[in-house]
């Protein structure tokens, strides 16, 4: 389910939203609102075009650094811009050289190239060379501001992810699991607690929540990382073969056993053995497993020799194992052996704020497999994803994104590109009223929530309820939109992750 990627703590997840793709017909002030500090480098040798571009961008709130030549760009030693707009026809110089120079200095710099109307081929070449977008002369103001805004948002997202990657460099889930929600941060903390020991961990979670990836993270992060990681799915193996698979067999042990065979325990020696879907193990195999765990030896089927094994056991199940014990389907003594430290993996519906980040991750993953031109998701499509209950969890999301990319004919997945069952879900209510319990915001009876934290919680909640709409959130909070923007900036927040995003 979950792929390779960064883990992002909940405290920073808000940055992933508020990517509002505005057209000129929408509120122009909202549509062009930049984040304070966004700097746009304008590289243009024509003074008229440069002045006009600068004026439009400054009018929209951006800080503009202007350069009239490749030389001027190379002589700049100040801080890197957020985004660059580069005229490809820089007189006798090459805009491509400027582009390469800028990207050499800052590989993540989104570059918007500007070409003459007749030079679409040049623009295509620039896109192939890594440009973020292209505009043709005469540049249209709304198109320019739209493109710059999206590029800034992309840049902010990349910067945040990098910062978080660096902050969480030691997190055991980094590089294994993608998530930014508080639920995923808590999961990371849980894993951290058990990673260095050999304590028996049981991963509890629905299908598609990433149990095997977390088990691999535990293995890779722990002292047994140099040993093998072996996974066996007990549900996929017939009861009659489970013993042989787990413990191996001797030649002639049963019909078809023409040679000795190592079981999973022996293959995992010195490493970690994941017993996936352990709740599906047959009663007979449960008995042998219990003995193996007690004795720390295995006896192959048909063999008589006790073979010592040194293996860390991690088990996983989508079932409620305690209920299975109560129902008599799972041995209680084995339960206590296996479930020393249970870790619950949250289903995707409990962490919808991770969906934008997961979408970005899957788009990148698909791009690595086969190049595609899809950069993001429309607001409507993202809303539909946020409403879906995701019974198949992240694995299902990956499948949906893959299908949508294949269906998508533009650079953005639209609602119509999603599978029909996602498109038909009812829309979120247009108007929401605050219905959150006071306990949620104020903490329990024993807890006093600091005012700053209280304010953050209220803002987050309002944005979540309004799916990232700052205007409606401000209304719910009883403050003006400008005040909310100011508070968001002061608290280092941005409208919540159920907003909109580009890859």
């Amino acid at each position, binding site marked *: 389910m979950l792929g390779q990627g960064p883990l992002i703590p909940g405290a920073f997840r808000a940055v992933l939203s508020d990517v509002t793709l505005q057209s000129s017909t929408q509120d122009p002030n909202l549509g062009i609102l930049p984040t304070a500090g966004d700097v746009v480098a304008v590289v243009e*040798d*024509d*003074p*008229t*075009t440069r*002045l*006009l571009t600068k*004026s*439009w961008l400054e*009018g929209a709130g951006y800080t503009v650094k202007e350069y009239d030549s490749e030389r001027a760009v190379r002589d700049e030693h100040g801080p890197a811009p957020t985004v660059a707009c580069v*005229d490809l*026809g820089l*007189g*006798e110089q090459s805009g491509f050289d400027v582009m390469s120079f800028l990207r050499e200095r800052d590989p993540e710099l989104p570059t918007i190239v500007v070409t*003459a*109307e007749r030079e679409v081929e040049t623009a295509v070449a620039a896109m192939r060379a890594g440009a973020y977008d292209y505009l043709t*002369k*005469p*540049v249209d*103001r709304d198109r320019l501001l739209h493109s710059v805004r999206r590029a800034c948002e992309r840049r902010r997202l990349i910067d945040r992810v990098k910062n978080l990657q660096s902050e969480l460099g030691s997190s055991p889930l980094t590089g294994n699991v993608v998530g930014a929600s508080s639920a995923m941060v808590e999961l990371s903390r849980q894993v951290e607690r058990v990673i260095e020991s050999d304590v028996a961990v049981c991963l509890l979670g629905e299908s598609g929540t990433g149990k095997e990836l977390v088990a691999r993270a535990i293995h890779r992060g722990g002292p047994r990382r140099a040993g093998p990681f072996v996974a066996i799915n007990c549900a996929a193996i017939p009861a009659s073969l489970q013993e042989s698979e787990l413990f191996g067999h001797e030649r002639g042990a049963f019909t078809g056993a023409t040679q000795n065979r190592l079981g999973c325990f022996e293959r995992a020696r010195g490493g970690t053995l994941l017993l996936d879907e352990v709740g599906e193990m047959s009663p007979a195999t449960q008995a042998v497993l219990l003995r193996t765990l007690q004795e720390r030896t295995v006896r192959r089927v048909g063999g008589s020799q006790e073979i010592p094994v040194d293996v860390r056991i991690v088990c996983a199940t989508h079932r409620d194992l305690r209920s299975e014990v109560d129902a008599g389907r799972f041995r209680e003594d084995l339960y206590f052996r296996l479930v020393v430290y249970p870790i619950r993996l949250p289903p995707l519906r409990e962490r919808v704020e991770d969906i934008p980040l997961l979408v970005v991750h899957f788009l990148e993953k698909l791009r690595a497999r086969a190049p595609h031109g899809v950069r993001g998701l429309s607001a409507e499509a993202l809303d539909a994803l946020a409403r879906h209950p995701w019974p198949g969890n992240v694995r299902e999301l990956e499948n949906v994104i893959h299908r949508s990319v294949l269906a998508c004919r533009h650079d953005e997945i639209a609602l119509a590109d999603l599978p029909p069952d996602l498109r038909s879900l009812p829309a979120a209510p247009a108007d929401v009223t605050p219905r959150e319990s006071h306990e949620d915001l104020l903490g329990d009876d024993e807890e006093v929530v600091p005012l700053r934290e209280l304010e953050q919680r209220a803002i987050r909640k309002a944005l979540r309820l309004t799916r990232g709409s700052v205007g409606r959130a401000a209304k719910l909070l009883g403050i003006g939109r400008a005040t909310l923007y100011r508070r968001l900036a002061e608290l280092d927040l941005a409208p919540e992750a159920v907003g909109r995003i580009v890859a």
Partner: protein
Amino acid sequence: MSPPWGGDNGPPSVPTLNRGRLDAIERDVSREFLVELVGLFVTDVAARLERLSDAVKARQTKRASSLAHALQGSAASLGVLRLRAVAQRLEELTEADEWGASDATLARLIDEFQHVRQVLVAIGSEASSDRAAKP
């Protein structure tokens, strides 16, 4: 490629200006800015035309076509359509080393600039008198 005015020396079919673009700039930024932008354009194009004339006279293919090309971007930004069209034609001619036709088109470009300068100055004056008329 056929020229946009129906022949190298024929009457132009392209309008002098896209007034809508100038109006949009004024609306999006300010009238004062439009006047400043027009002033910059006139000064800059005058200087470019001098360099372009030198390059055409010296039969410098690459330099002449590059300068003609750059002029188009400048004209396009302000919606100066006919000047842009003539500059585009000059770029094609210089690229093809058709210097006889290039000389004629350069002369036409200079004429067109004189014409458009008057039009733009008039627009600037309108702006100034509007400002003066404001209470």
